[in-house]
């Protein structure tokens, strides 16, 4: 059934007109920022981080630019949901499957097929909306966004236009310690549900293109941020925090490389003090968080060039692609006119109605979110570095929490996890779920060292075996006879042996070469197979060495 429509430009919804049948046409530019002209950035600790950033970017001349210009950054993120089936049909979705195998008449857009919403999509949308502190629209709807493209089988994308399921939220995060640290809060304009398009590939030789519709119809959540970010570091960390969040919630695996997390950056600059926003440029094709940061830095420099020469009106409002190889943004072929998506309510789908009970039940089922974990860890007295490390991966955090639950000391557990355990995982490219060490054994290990049963050095050795092969601390201590020697008499015996075996060095020591203490200590350790208690060892050794002089 063809629909007649008058021209309507695509706009970010600024107001919702009361009459249901009529949309007003606004001469609007794509502008999620126009709503936010009066938005105050809620950043704190700003001066400190600016100073740190300037040291990082000295060679790019960026700090000079940043003294004169303010950068306004907003990010649109698409999150591919990890539901078992697509949004509107029962097809499964498996990344990497043979092309055009997960298809059916609905997602292929064949005539007569009708969409039926996957209830999990709403559940995930509500979860994410709540986690982003948004207001939920208890009543929302789907709309058709119409355009023609080979990877869009129906000729329209089912999305949400003027009544998204969630809006007006915020996200809290901490900037990495090595990049200046600091707490930030960025606003979230909206979160809405929509479906993904298929994949378009270009053939060798360039005679034609190829379409794979496996991905068509996969559910997405689009998250639009307020233009609150002010530099590449903040933008990259925003992306990272969204990734952390969707993984914590279990709504997506958030892989930028796989395309299950896609970020498009909108950036403009303006001379400091100017109230008007500069021309906004969109950047696409960002495949990692570091690309986000570098693309923004590049674009700031590029736009500042125009401004500094008084040519700011020559900055084209356009979409640019980030060229990872050349490390620069490049123009996509310019569009002739603004896209006219002719949005209208999707007639084949009913209203999405959420009850308070439903929302409450989902809110109650939310896990501890990254921000809450970070604040809890901070209160334990852990360093910021440890806090950020432990809270970054929910599985690592769970491991840490389980270890604490067995009675281990927080700082010691954190050190082990951040140190030897993390090193192992990095070397072997293993995740925390792969290693054989269990939280209870880690707690046992910490306790054994604390109680003096084994030395710290032995502990490290056992740890490696526990991680790689599993087993229990007690078992290993017994099997390898690793109990620390704490009997002074026994240590004395070994020291006597060592001193007797090395008369020349003893002479030298008593002649003034006190550094040789280390040599003797090492020899005693070797004799004792590493089991001598280091503190006692050195105490008795010193006594013996200094006794006869």
């Amino acid at each position, binding site marked *: 059934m063809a629909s007649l429509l008058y021209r309507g430009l695509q706009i970010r919804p600024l107001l919702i007109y009361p009459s249901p049948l009529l949309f007003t046409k606004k001469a609007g530019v794509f502008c999620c920022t126009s709503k936010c002209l009066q938005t105050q950035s809620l950043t704190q600790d700003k001066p400190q981080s600016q100073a740190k950033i300037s040291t990082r970017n000295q060679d790019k001349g960026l700090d000079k630019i940043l003294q004169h210009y303010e950068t306004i950054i907003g990010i649109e993120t698409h999150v591919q949901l990890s539901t078992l089936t697509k949004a509107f049909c029962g097809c499964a979705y498996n990344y990497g499957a043979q092309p055009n195998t997960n298809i059916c008449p609905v997602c292929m857009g064949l005539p007569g097929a009708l969409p039926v919403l996957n209830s999990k999509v709403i559940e995930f949308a509500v979860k994410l909306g709540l986690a982003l502190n948004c207001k939920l629209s208890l009543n929302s709807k789907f709309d058709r966004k119409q355009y023609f493209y080979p990877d869009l089988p129906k000729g329209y994308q089912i999305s949400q236009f003027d009544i998204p399921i969630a809006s007006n939220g915020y996200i809290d995060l901490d900037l990495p310690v090595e990049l200046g640290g600091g707490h930030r809060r960025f606003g979230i304009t909206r979160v809405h549900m929509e479906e993904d398009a298929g994949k378009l590939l270009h053939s060798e030789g360039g005679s034609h293109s190829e379409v794979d519709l496996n991905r068509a119809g996969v559910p997405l959540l689009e998250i639009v941020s307020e233009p609150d970010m002010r530099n590449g570091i903040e933008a990259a960390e925003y992306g990272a925090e969204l990734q952390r969040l969707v993984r914590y919630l279990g709504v997506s695996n958030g892989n930028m490389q796989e395309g299950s997390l896609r970020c498009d950056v909108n950036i403009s600059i303006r001379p400091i003090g100017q109230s008007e926003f500069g021309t906004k440029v969109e950047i696409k094709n960002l495949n990692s968080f570091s690309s986000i940061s570098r693309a923004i830095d590049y674009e700031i420099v590029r736009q500042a060039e125009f401004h500094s020469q008084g040519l700011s009106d020559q900055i084209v409002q356009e979409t640019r692609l980030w060229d990872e190889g050349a490390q620069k943004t490049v123009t996509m072929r310019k569009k002739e006119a603004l896209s006219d998506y002719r949005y209208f*309510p999707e007639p084949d789908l009913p209203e999405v109605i959420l009850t308070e009970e439903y929302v409450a039940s989902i809110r109650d089922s939310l896990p501890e979110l990254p921000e809450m974990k970070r604040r809890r860890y901070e209160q334990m007295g852990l360093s910021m570095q440890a806090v950020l490390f432990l809270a970054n991966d929910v599985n690592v955090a769970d491991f840490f929490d389980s270890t604490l639950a067995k009675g281990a000391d927080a700082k010691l557990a954190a050190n082990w996890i951040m140190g030897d355990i993390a090193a192992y995982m990095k070397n072997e490219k293993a995740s925390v779920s792969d290693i054989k060490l269990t939280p209870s054994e880690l707690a046992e290990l910490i306790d054994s060292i604390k109680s003096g049963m084994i030395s710290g050095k032995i502990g490290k050795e056992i740890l490696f075996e526990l991680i790689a092969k599993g087993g229990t601390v007690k078992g290993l201590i017994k099997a390898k006879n690793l109990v620390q020697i704490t009997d002074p008499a026994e240590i004395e015996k070994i020291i006597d042996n060592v001193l007797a075996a090395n008369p020349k060095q003893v002479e030298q020591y008593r002649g003034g070469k006190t550094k040789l203490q280390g040599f003797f200590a090492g020899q005693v350790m070797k004799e004792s197979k590493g089991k001598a208690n280091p503190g006692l060892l050195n105490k008795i050794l010193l006594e013996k060495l200094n006794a006869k002089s």
Partner: protein
Amino acid sequence: MAIGTLITLRAGATLWTRSSSRTLNFASSFVHRRDKRNISIKSSSFDPPDVGRLAETARISLTPQEVEEFGPKIQQVVEWFGQLQAVDLDSVEPAIRSDIDGDNFREDVPRTFGNREAIIAGIPSYEEPYIKVPKVLNKE
């Protein structure tokens, strides 16, 4: 030509004040000639349709003659729907959708479509395993 149900208005459109008491039925509005209508219009509330642009956005090719012919017809249909403007909505809570059926959901359980071969067979230019399309350079 099938007709959709959506009407967009230019911002600040003048509302109809008096509509004709005669009811236009769907079929007659189609063949009805403009000059015979009795509807009083304060001013032209609707832009004449830009048929050329409409056709382009819908990817439908029209001859220049068809473009000229369709303009007034489309205008008529829109104005016929425009009678709704006369309804007083001041005390009506806006509805998001007009259906009464309510929720219709699916469980998140995979189901393989049983006749993929028929789908593939229906694709005019299929080069295993992809759908072959003309070279695409850029969106729209």
